[in-house]
């Protein structure tokens, strides 16, 4: 299987472009906050008015339940601004950020697809490719969430932050040249298992960020840039809805991994470090779902568990592959 070097180089160009575009999008999202803050000083009474709106919105938000049922919350808009003529600066920044995220996502897709053609195999065979896939899934999840619920837009900066950090690591320290994979990875289960894992991880990453911001929002006294965030209830609900979608998918990914392990390593489960932490992650998210059904744990407690889940998941994706030695230690590192 010869590697098409030209395509591989184009894939790398696309990767670097995507990282740059995401960075720009993140900065624009931050600009959105900066402008909100400046305006908050200028228009104090407008802020108060908006807080009143927020307070009013916060109550139905807890009951109406589905953001799709509710009209898109306009929290992200500047304080009491007129919708026309001409959008306010935060609005413009936010819109530009979303447009750039979409562009970045497209370039990122191109990078992954071209890489796949360059190596003539499914392009998640090493840590660089895998992290790229996970981040792409996170960005796509984020864009989907945003489409369903435009009020979530100010989260963009916080979703793109981990994506940016991970992509930077993947593109620098963990980068490997396009190449065929070792025999153990030559299986159609690579496609099934790793696709499911990266999609579930991308989803859980977005859910985890929403839970972190929910906790921040809940414990903040209001004021400052946090006011630009969606209401706490909206964040919590988004985290929950993404998680209940991701959890069965993650379960499927683990089962697919077990089926593959049975064919490749001689047993479906052997408490290899990666398997162990996958189990831990699964149990933590099971905790989350149970906490959602336990009085007194439904919101705050559950959100903390979701954050623990996020940490465990990231720990499994990266630490286990890079630091411990186990059967998942190929992937072009260590």
């Amino acid at each position, binding site marked *: 299987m010869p590697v098409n070097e030209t395509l591989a180089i184009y894939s790398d160009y696309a990767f670097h472009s995507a990282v740059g575009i995401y960075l720009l999008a993140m900065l624009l999202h931050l600009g959105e906050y900066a402008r909100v803050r400046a305006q908050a000083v200028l228009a104090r009474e407008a802020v108060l008015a908006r807080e009143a709106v927020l307070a009013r919105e916060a109550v139905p938000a807890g009951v109406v339940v589905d953001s799709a049922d509710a009209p898109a919350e306009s929290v992200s808009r500047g304080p009491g601004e007129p919708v026309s003529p001409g959008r306010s600066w935060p609005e413009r920044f936010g819109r530009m950020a979303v447009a750039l995220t979409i562009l970045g996502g497209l370039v990122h897709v191109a990078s992954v697809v071209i890489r796949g053609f360059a190596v003539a195999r499914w392009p998640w065979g090493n840590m660089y490719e895998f992290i790229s896939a996970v981040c792409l899934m996170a960005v796509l999840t984020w864009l989907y969430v945003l489409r369903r619920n435009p009020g979530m837009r100010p989260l963009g900066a916080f979703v793109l932050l981990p994506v940016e950090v991970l992509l930077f690591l993947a593109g620098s320290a963990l980068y490997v040249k396009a190449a065929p994979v070792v025999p153990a990875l030559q299986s159609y289960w690579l496609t099934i298992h790793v696709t499911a894992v990266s999609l579930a991880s991308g989803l859980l990453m977005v859910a985890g960020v929403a839970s972190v911001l929910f906790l921040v929002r809940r414990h903040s006294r209001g004021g400052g840039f946090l006011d630009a965030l969606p209401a706490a209830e909206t964040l919590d609900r988004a985290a929950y809805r993404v998680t209940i979608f991701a959890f069965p998918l993650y379960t499927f990914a683990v089962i697919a991994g077990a089926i593959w392990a049975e064919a490749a390593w001689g047993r*479906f489960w052997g408490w290899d470090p990666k398997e162990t932490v996958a189990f831990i992650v699964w149990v933590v998210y099971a905790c989350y779902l149970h906490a959602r059904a336990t009085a007194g744990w439904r919101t705050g407690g559950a959100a903390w568990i979701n954050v623990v889940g996020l940490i465990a998941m990231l720990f499994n994706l990266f630490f286990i592959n890079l630091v411990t030695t186990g059967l998942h230690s190929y992937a072009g590192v260590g």
Partner: protein
Amino acid sequence: MTKAIPEAAGTPEPEHSEQAEQTTSTGVPETPTQGAESADSRKIADSPGGGGVSDGAWGVWGFVRNTWRGLVSMRTALVLLFLLALASLPGALLPQRSLNPAKITEYRQQHPMLGPVLDRLGFFDVFASPWFAAIYLLLFVSLIGCLGPRTLEYARACRAQPVATPRNLNRLPHHAGAEVDGSPEQAVARVRDQLRGWRTAVREEPDADGRASFTVSAEKGYLREAGNLVFHLALLGLLVGFAAGKLFGYEGQVIVLTGGNQFCNSGILGYDSFRAGALVDGTSLSPFCVKVDTFDAEYLPNGQPEHYRSSIGYQAGADLDAGATGPWRPYQLEVNSPLRVAGDRVYLLGHGYAPTFTVTFPDGTSRTQTVQWRTADQTTMLAEGATKFDRPGLPDDASRRLNQIAVTGLLAPTSSGGKVITSVFPAPLRPEVAVDVLRGDLGLDDGRGQSIFEVPQAQLQSGALTRVARQNLLPGQEIRLNDGTTVRFDRVTQWVGLQISHDPAQDFVLVFAVLILLGLGTSLTIKRRRFWARIRPADPVAESERTVIEIGGLARTDQAGYGEEFARLRTVLLGNGGPEDSDNPRPDGTRDRGGSA
């Protein structure tokens, strides 16, 4: 695993309750205030302890009962789940005996204080340790304690009629009302028509004037709880299957030289290493034989392996019974495609090289041996080992022991050349060995086992074994020792490392895993919801018949998406929009759980 913890009143987000309300609303109409019932009031309500039970007995019984209730409560399940995650963590961070015993030795050397303590506490065998077992057994007891009653309750709920229509539909989160054309009977028919696929019950309730009024109660989404129960029961099944696999399964590794060498799964002595399940004594392994013909590996120019392939033949069943005349069925053994035969699986897990040496003794007799050497470097496949020879034709043990010969050293499949050789490529392109020839007593008959890859260091140190030559050899080259003995390096043969695995329960585990997935998907996507309609004749003023329809809806679990369904029903049944707002937020945030139902 929800148990008797109803939601406390005033919980801000009851709509996300996964299952909590199911225990209290078993199809019996409840008034909205019952929703606020606390856990304590439930306990008092069901406390047994009738007359005739003494205080002491009641105390013991109460203790047992409270312990049991505590164990099966949701909170306990949550804590146990959390403990399970926490207890698994050392399994990933500390070396584990089942994976790599050598690393434990290393760890104990690096941490002389901590290592032995951790070892005693089972931290190097987390998944076999009593404390880990305690956690998951408690968890599963809690699960059973929770599933039993819930299954019964679910069976009851499935037979029960949908709950009666609440008196005041305005209090539901979704509601609407309008006056439409037609008789009440026609309206009932229309409502029922729209509620196909729902479980419905129509009840007559004469109003104050004695005119015929109707209520329609409907409920949908029973599969949610079914999925939930299937998920949890399948978890139990998975655990049982896993345990059965550990009890009745076995796993062994063996190295077989290519070129038609055979391995028969007849007993554990045939294996290089063997791990038996607790109920496996090794006397009844699945009978089959494999014969390894060739092994091919393809490498990239940088030495990364691209493909491993081994042509083997196998015999099982009737072929095996036919003995030597039985046919060998061919199979291409590859890394991701094991041979599945006679209930066992044969895997290609490794490969390596075995040099062939011929020793010709001064009396003209010669001995040729091909013994596998172990791979010292996985990237370049540099191998190390020891090939041991016994000199034939000697009269007694004493002189035999003085003349044993071992050829030990390194084998480079693609040699770098030069005085000190190393391997530069994993394929056998330019094999060369760098060997020491040792002569003397190998200690083969001192009663102790010894590695086939090494000579005993003690024999070397005591002088019982001495080095008589050191040289690099290409195939065909030989060393002449001082007594006239020659040692010739003939060629290199490949060996394959096979693993034979037997797990009679793994198909069951797969079935349960699929059930887990189905149950999970069902319970997280299906929403249990209720719908009511109250239909009464309009005030008899107009000539044509008019009917008043009031409708109300409630999602019993996650309400996401229910609003759209309700809005659709409202539009169809009431025409474009009842005058009333369909969403009915409760400003106090204490909305009903399970609603007025």
